[in-house]
C-alpha cells in the first residue's frame, strides 16, 4: 500500500513534468534556432588561385587556411569564391559550410587570371540576395586574399578600391590580406588589412578576419571630446534593410588595424532536465522495487 502511495505521486510528477518540460524546450529551441538563423556572422572568402600562386605559395596558403578555419566557429556561414572566369561562386553561403570550404581550398589549383572586381561583384550580389531572401541582420565579412593585382577589370587597382568602398557602404566588413608583397593597394581602403610573406604571417593576418570591436561602453571621454560631442551634428543613419541599400554614410578609408578578439564561445546546451528527472525517478522506482522484493523475501 505504501509502495503504491509512493508510486502514484512519482509517476504523476513524471507525466506532468515530462511533456511540459519538452514543450518548454521545444519553444526555446525553436526561438534559439530562429535567432541563430537571422543573425551570426557570414564570411565570404575570395581566394586568389591565379597562376602566380602556383607552387609553394599555394601550399602555404592551403596550410594556413586549413589551420585558420579550424579556429573559426563552425556555426558561422561561409562561402568560397575563386578566380575562374570572372569570379566563380564555388561554395554558396550556407550553414555548416566550414569543413566544405576547407576541403575545396585543399583541392584548388593555381591556373586562373586575377578578376578581383569580378569576384567582388559575385560576393556583393550574393550578400544582397541573402539579405533580401534570408536575413538582413547577419554580419557580413568579405576576405580578399590575393598575391596580385586586378587583371580583368580595366579599372585595375582603382576598381578594386572602389568596389571595396561600395561594399563597406553596405555595412560589409572587407578584410584585405596581401600575400608575398602584393595587395598593398587595399591598405587604407579595406576595413582591416594585413600583409603576409609566409605561412605564419598569413595565419596572423587571417586572425583579423573575425575581429569584432567588442563593448562600446567604459570609454575614456576627455572634457575636450565631450565638448566636441555636444557640438557634433550626428549624420542620419539609415536602418538596415533587406533591400541592401547603404546603411551608413560613405565609409571613410582607414588605415588602422582593429584589435583582434577571441571568437565568441559556442553555446553549449545543458543536460536536459527531462533526463535528469527520468533518471532520478528511475532510480527511485528501482530502489523501491528492490526494497519490496527484499521485504517479500524476508516475509517468506
Amino acid at each position, binding site marked *: 500500500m505504501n509502495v503504491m502511495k509512493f508510486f502514484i505521486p512519482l509517476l504523476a510528477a513524471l507525466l506532468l513534468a515530462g511533456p511540459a518540460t519538452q514543450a518548454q524546450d521545444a519553444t526555446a529551441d525553436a*526561438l534559439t534556432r530562429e535567432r541563430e538563423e537571422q543573425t551570426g556572422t557570414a564570411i565570404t572568402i575570395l581566394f586568389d588561385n591565379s597562376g602566380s600562386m602556383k607552387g609553394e605559395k599555394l601550399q602555404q596558403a592551403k596550410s594556413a587556411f586549413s589551420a585558420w578555419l579550424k579556429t573559426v566557429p563552425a556555426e558561422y556561414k561561409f562561402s568560397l569564391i575563386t578566380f575562374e572566369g570572372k569570379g566563380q561562386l564555388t561554395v554558396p553561403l550556407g550553414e555548416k559550410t566550414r569543413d566544405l570550404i576547407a576541403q575545396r581550398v585543399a583541392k584548388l589549383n593555381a591556373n586562373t587570371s586575377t578578376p578581383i572586381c569580378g569576384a567582388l561583384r559575385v560576393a556583393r550580389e550574393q550578400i544582397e540576395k541573402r539579405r533580401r531572401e534570408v536575413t538582413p541582420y547577419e554580419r557580413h565579412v568579405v576576405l580578399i586574399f590575393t598575391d596580385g593585382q586586378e587583371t580583368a577589370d580595366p579599372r585595375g587597382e582603382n576598381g578594386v578600391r572602389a568596389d571595396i568602398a561600395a561594399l563597406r557602404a553596405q555595412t560589409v566588413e572587407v578584410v584585405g590580406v596581401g600575400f608575398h608583397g602584393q595587395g598593398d593597394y587595399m591598405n587604407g581602403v579595406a576595413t582591416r588589412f594585413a600583409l603576409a610573406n609566409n605561412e605564419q604571417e598569413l595565419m596572423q593576418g587571417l586572425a583579423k578576419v573575425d575581429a569584432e570591436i567588442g563593448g562600446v561602453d567604459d570609454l575614456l571621454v576627455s572634457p575636450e571630446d565631450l565638448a566636441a560631442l555636444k557640438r557634433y551634428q550626428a549624420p542620419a543613419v539609415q536602418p538596415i534593410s533587406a533591400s541592401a541599400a547603404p546603411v551608413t554614410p560613405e565609409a571613410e578609408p*582607414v588605415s588602422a588595424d582593429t584589435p583582434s578578439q577571441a571568437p565568441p564561445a559556442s553555446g553549449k546546451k545543458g543536460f536536459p532536465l527531462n533526463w535528469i528527472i527520468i533518471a532520478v525517478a528511475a532510480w527511485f522506482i528501482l530502489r523501491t522495487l528492490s526494497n519490496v522484493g527484499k521485504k517479500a523475501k524476508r516475509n517468506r
Partner: protein
Amino acid sequence: MQVLLQDAGLKPGEVNLKYVRDITVNPKAKDGKVHEPANALRNDASLAAAACISPDLLTLTAGGKVGTGAEDSVKGARAILTTRTASRVIADVYAVRRDFFDAQKPLVQSFVAAHLAEQKRFQELLANVAKKTQADAGKVAEFKKLSKPLAGIFLQDENAVNDFILWAGVDSEIVGLAGNTEFFTAPNNPVGFNATQTRAVAYYEQTGLVSKAQKLNFAGWDFGSDFGSGLKTKEPEKKTFASAAEVRRAADSKDASKLFSYTFKFPAKMAEIRWQDYRQVFETMHEKVTRYGGAVVQLRGHADNFFYNFVQMKRAKGDTTYQRRIEGSTQFEMLPLPTAEEVANSANKLSYSRAFAVKQAYAQYLRENLGRTQDEMDLSRFDVKGMGISDPVVKSPTTPEEREANMRGELVIIAVEAEVPVGFGADDLK
C-alpha cells in the same frame, strides 16, 4: 471604436462620433434619409471616416484600393484597418434577460448547444471552400443554399451569397467552442468577456452614453461538459507566416500600414529580459497582440548612437585611436578607432538581440503566466527588427540619461491584410 481610438492615442472628447441606425443600406427604409455609415461618408463631407461592413468598404475604396469618386466610391478613401487585422476588437455575444434565463435555463442551454453545433458545421463548410480546387462541389452548393437567407438578413440581399460567405469566413471569424471557452473563461484574457465589458462600461460612463452602466453576467456554462463531447475546448493556433523572412516581407510590403506603436525602455547592457521584471509591459503587449490578431507585430530594438558619434567626431578631429577600460580593471587600453561599418554591425547586432529578447520573454510570459503550450502560441506574426542607431531619441547624447533614452524597444502593430494568406477568395466560390 473606443479601444481603437485609445490605441491610436486619442481620447473620446477629441473625436466627434456620429451614430447611424443601420449597419448597411436598408432597402425597406423609405424615408429618404441616410441611416448607414457608407452613405453617411458619401453625403457628409465633414466626416473623416466611417466604420462599415466589408462589402461597403470595398465599394467606398474602389475595390480595396483608394476611392476615386466614381462608382459610389469616395475620393481619397482607403481602408485603415478591418476586423481581419483587429480580429479581437468586436465580439458578437448573445444576451437574454435574467428572469428569462432563470426560468428557461434548459432552453437557453439547448440554444447554445445548437448554435455551437452549427458553428462547427459552418467551420467545416468553410474549410471545404478553403480546399479550393479540391473542394467538394456538392458541399459548396449546400453551403451557398444555407447562406442565402443569412445574406438576406445581414446584407439585405439574398443574392449576395458569395459576399456573405467571404464576410463570414475571411473578414470575420467563427470561433466555435474553443473560442467561446477562451473568451468567457480564460483568466487574464485582455480581450475576453470581463476585460471587454470593463472597457466598454468605462467608455459609456466617460462619454455619458449611459447614466448608470451595468455589466452583463456570464451564464456560467461549463464548456467542457455542458454541450456534449464532440467539440474541442482548445484548438492549436494556426501559424500565420512560414518563416521570419516571410513575415519581414509582409511588414516591408508597400501595402503594409503602421497602425500605432508602443515604446518601452531597455536597461543598459541588457541581453536578456525576464517578463516578471516588466509585467506591465508584457501585459500591454499581450493585449495588443491579441486584439490585433491579424496584424504583424513588429518588435524594434534601438541601440544608443553615442559610440558611433564618438568615433565619427574623433575621426573628424584627425584622431586614429581611443581608450577603453579593460574589463575587470581600472586601467584603460589604447585601441584603433573602428570603422563605420564595424560600429554599425555591432549596433545592429545589439539592437536585434534586444528586440529578440523581448520575443523570447513574451513566449515565456505566455507559457509561465498564461499556461500556453507551444501549439497555443502563434509567434510567426512577430517581425523582429534591429534598428541599430538609425532612430535615436536624442541625436547627440552626452549624458547617461540621454544614452538610456536611446536604448529602447518598440512594439509596432502593422496592418498587412494584402499579405496575410487567407483561406479562400471570391474566385473559389464561383
